[in-house]
Each structure stands twice: as structure tokens, then as C-alpha cells.
């Protein structure tokens, strides 16, 4: 790790002027160990919480709060090798599709509105209205139009999740430093290239913040859409189990949902760290200057 950072040409030179004593590789190592430390703390806390739940519930005879060991066994039997796999698959399909549409449309429409000032000014009140409107209230309307099939769920997820990305993209692009725009023009970049190669990357930290928000909304709406009117998915499974007094099944569904949410977040953070490597690096340097 260290050797690799040192091999980076130029990275090891002293920063003349602002911070002569500190060098980039040292800070990289420090940052890496800080991240590792935080991850370790989290892992310990997670293990401790699970352990506590496991121990506390071990002797439970309540049908409402079955022992964790039993829930995990049901989880395996139902979701890993059992019939609920189809429910998981259908949920994931809607989530991935709805979120992808929300993300792409959010960035695309955000960028379009950014470049068309008059349209932006005309639509901005409606955008904020739709943003603050709680998406679940739209579910009945979407059902009326799209029925209760897969399309309805994807539409609900996409419609609810598009706003955070769209508004963050718009805000981020509007906040791009005028010097960067001047630079892009001075380099002779065409309008489209300026948007794609300068404005979008410069706005990326905020776009990513929007995408993270959209992901959370997507997961919530995935479940809500399955609760309301559906014949499949994790949300449907949980509700059906609860209604038929299958509390073990219900808990296994809730646990499955937690796993889906956790995995989605983990993937997001990994992608974010790769994509915004430069942003965090530059910010760490600024912090020291």
C-alpha cells in the first residue's frame, strides 16, 4: 500500500508554499488507516449487536419474538434455497430497474434544465413541490394508470426516487466555479463537451449525494409498492406472513430486507469511493493547508 503510494511520481514531493512538511503519501496512509479503523469499529459494533440479539432471544418462547437462531434458519430455508427466492428476485429486479431509471433520468433532466435557463426558471417551483410531496401518496394514482403489475412498481420507484438526484444535479451544476467554465471555453471545448467533461464531473460530489438519497427512497418505495397492491416481492411476503400469523416468516422477510438495504448501501459506498477518490483526496489536502 505504502510502496504503491510512494511510487506515484511527483506525489511524494514536498508541498512548497502551503504546507511544506506534509506529503501526499503520508496522508494517504493516514487516511487509509483511519478508514480501516472506522470499519473495524463498525464491524465490532455490528457483531456485538447481533450477538446480543442472538443471546437475548435464544430462550424466547414468544411467537411474536422468535429466537434469532430460528429466524436465521427460516431465512436460509425460505430465501436462500426455498420458495421465497422468487420474491427476492422480483423485488431486486424492480429496485434495480426503478433506481437505474431514476438515476439516469435525474442526471439527464437535471443537466438539461441546467442548460436551458428559461425552462429551469419556469419549472423550478413544480420541481420542489414534487420533491416535497411524499411519494407514497401517489401510489393509488399510479396504480390507476399502470395497474398492479411490475410496470407499476418500477414507475413508482423511478418517480419517487428521481427528485433527489435531479435537484442535486441541477444545484451542483449551477454551483460550478465560473473559473472552471472559463477554462473550459478557453480550451476550446464545445458546449456538449463542456457539460460532459467539466460541468458534470465538477458537480459529481453533489450528484452522488443525490444518488445516495435516491437509493434510500428507491428501497422504501420498493417495499411500499409491494405492500399496497401486489402479488410478489419482499414487502408482499412480509405482509402475507404477518396476516397468516407466520411471525417467523415475517421476521425472516424483515431480515432479508435489511440485508438488501445493507448490501445496496455497501455497493454504493464502494462505487462512491472510487468515483470521488479525487474529491476526498483534494479535500484532505485542503484541510491541511
Amino acid at each position, binding site marked *: 500500500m505504502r510502496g504503491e503510494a510512494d511510487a506515484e511520481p*511527483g506525489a511524494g514531493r514536498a508541498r*512548497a*508554499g*502551503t504546507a511544506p512538511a506534509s506529503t501526499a503519501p503520508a496522508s494517504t496512509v493516514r487516511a487509509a488507516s483511519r478508514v480501516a479503523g472506522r470499519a473495524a469499529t463498525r464491524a465490532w459494533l455490528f457483531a456485538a449487536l447481533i450477538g446480543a440479539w442472538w443471546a437475548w432471544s435464544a430462550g424466547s418462547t414468544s411467537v411474536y419474538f422468535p429466537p434469532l437462531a430460528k429466524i436465521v434458519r427460516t431465512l436460509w430455508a425460505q430465501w436462500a434455497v426455498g420458495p421465497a427466492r422468487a420474491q427476492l428476485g422480483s423485488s431486486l429486479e424492480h429496485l434495480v430497474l426503478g433506481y437505474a431509471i431514476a438515476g439516469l433520468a435525474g442526471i439527464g433532466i437535471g443537466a438539461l434544465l441546467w442548460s436551458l435557463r428559461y425552462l429551469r426558471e419556469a419549472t423550478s417551483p413544480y420541481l420542489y413541490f414534487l420533491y416535497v410531496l411524499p411519494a407514497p401518496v401517489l401510489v393509488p394514482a399510479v396504480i390507476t394508470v399502470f395497474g398492479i403489475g411490475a410496470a407499476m412498481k418500477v414507475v413508482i420507484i423511478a418517480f419517487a426516487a428521481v427528485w433527489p438526484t435531479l435537484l442535486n444535479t441541477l444545484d451542483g451544476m449551477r454551483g460550478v466555479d465560473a473559473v472552471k467554465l472559463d477554462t473550459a471555453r478557453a480550451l476550446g471545448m464545445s458546449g456538449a463537451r463542456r457539460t460532459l467533461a467539466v460541468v458534470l*464531473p465538477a458537480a*459529481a460530489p453533489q450528484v452522488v449525494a443525490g444518488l445516495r438519497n435516491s437509493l434510500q427512497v428507491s428501497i422504501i418505495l420498493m417495499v411500499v409498492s409491494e405492500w399496497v397492491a401486489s402479488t410478489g416481492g419482499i414487502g408482499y411476503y412480509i405482509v402475507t406472513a404477518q396476516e397468516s400469523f407466520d411471525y417467523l416468516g415475517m421476521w425472516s422477510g424483515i431480515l432479508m430486507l435489511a440485508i438488501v438495504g445493507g448490501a445496496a448501501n455497501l455497493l454504493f459506498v464502494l462505487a462512491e469511493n472510487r468515483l470521488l477518490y479525487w474529491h476526498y483526496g483534494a479535500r484532505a489536502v485542503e484541510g491541511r493547508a
Partner: protein
Amino acid sequence: MMGQAPQPPVVALKGVRKGYPLRGGGQRLALADVTFDVARGEFACVVGPSGAGKTTLLRCLAGLAMPTSGTVEFEGTPLRQVPAGVGVVFQDYGRSLFPWLTVRGNVDLALKARGVARDSRPARIAEVLASVGLADAGRSYPWQLSGGMQQRVAIARALACRPDLLLMDEPFASVDAQTRFGLEDLILRVREEFGVTVVFVTHDIDEAVYLADRVIVLSASPGVVSEVIDIALPRPRDQVATKRDETFAAYREHLLGLVMTR
């Protein structure tokens, strides 16, 4: 006037006036009436106090801003956008470099934007980075470098497309004195190597006299050209010898007098 050059000037400003609209209507005049030419191969420094309209002038020269009235011609044609023959270095390298790209990436983007073929780009990047003494820094990110090195990246990026005219807006104002002297010598050397005409904006009179063939003095806001002075100091210039020269001191004193009385 120095150099009755047979060629037409690289840039020519005639009666350039530039106002910015004010909130309550009307406008704030940044440049009142600016007229001057820059000959091919010349190193022209524009000095003036803060707020004199130096940045505004440079943006008009680059084609980044249109004058309210008057004309700016680059190689005989009126400016509409930034021409391919112009490179610009901004004051604040931290805001001008693209932090998501490596040093190579920053230079490469300039070449891409001007349509330089993919297979000739790596050699061009290596060449221009070597010219500014950053041959080994290509894979670093700008923010991993010192301020002086970052400004050299910006210079390399501006030179990558081999411009006829290099415009620089107080490029060394935010680095420490020692680094600045090094950068001044670097820009003189690079200018020889690339045979580029330079318009260099600064508020530092010593820097202007040290670098220039000609110093254009802007009065305080709104800017007008209050004086143009040919600098007859020998080249190559030297940080110690040139600045010890009596002629250097005389220019310096004269310019200080001009700027102070305003």
C-alpha cells in the same frame, strides 16, 4: 513605439469599453477606453491596481467576454470565441485545474478539445510537461502538487496546443516569492522555446519590468491606458543582475510614481 514590425499585430484593441450591468439598472464601467496592439513575439505586461479592470481586459482579449463597445482583433479577425491560437492561464490554479483528472489528463483534455489526433497526444503531453519541468508528474493529481507546480501544469495545458498568444492573469500572485522568481524565469524560457507572444497581467511592478518588452499601465477603475513604456533591458534577464541594473531601478521608480499618484 518599439518594433515597426512588417507583420500585423497579433492582437489589436481599439477603444475597448466594458461595463457590467448593475442590479438597479445602469452599469459599472470596468474599462473606459483601452487601445493598444501587441506585436508578434512581444512580451507585454499590463499593470494596474486591483480593480483597474485587468481581468476584464484579459477576458476581452481571450474572447471570453465581449466588449460593450470597441473591437478586439486577433490576427486580423474580430473575436467571437476563444480562437485556437490563444492559450489562457488564470490567476487561481486551484480553481482552474480540473481536480478529477491527473496532470496528464488535464493536458490531454486541452488537446482533445482542439481535435489533436489520439496517437499524437501522448508525445505532445510528454513534450509540454518536460518544457515546464514536470516530466515525472504526469500521473499525479494536481492537488498532490505544490502551488508552483500546479501553476506549471496550467501553463503546460495552455501551451499544449502551441498557441500564438499566451494570456496570463496574475499567474504568480498566489505563490511565495522564491517560487515566483523561478516561475518568472520559466515563463521567459518557455516563451523562447515556443516562440509565443505573451500578454501578462500583474499588479507587481518589479515583475512587469523584469519580464516585459513593453509595460502597459492601466489607470485605476475604470481602466484607461495611462502610459506605455518600452523596457530596454538586455536579454536574457537574470533575477540578480537585471534587478541590480540602474535602468531597472529607473523604470521601477517611474512606474511606481505613475501608479501611486492615482
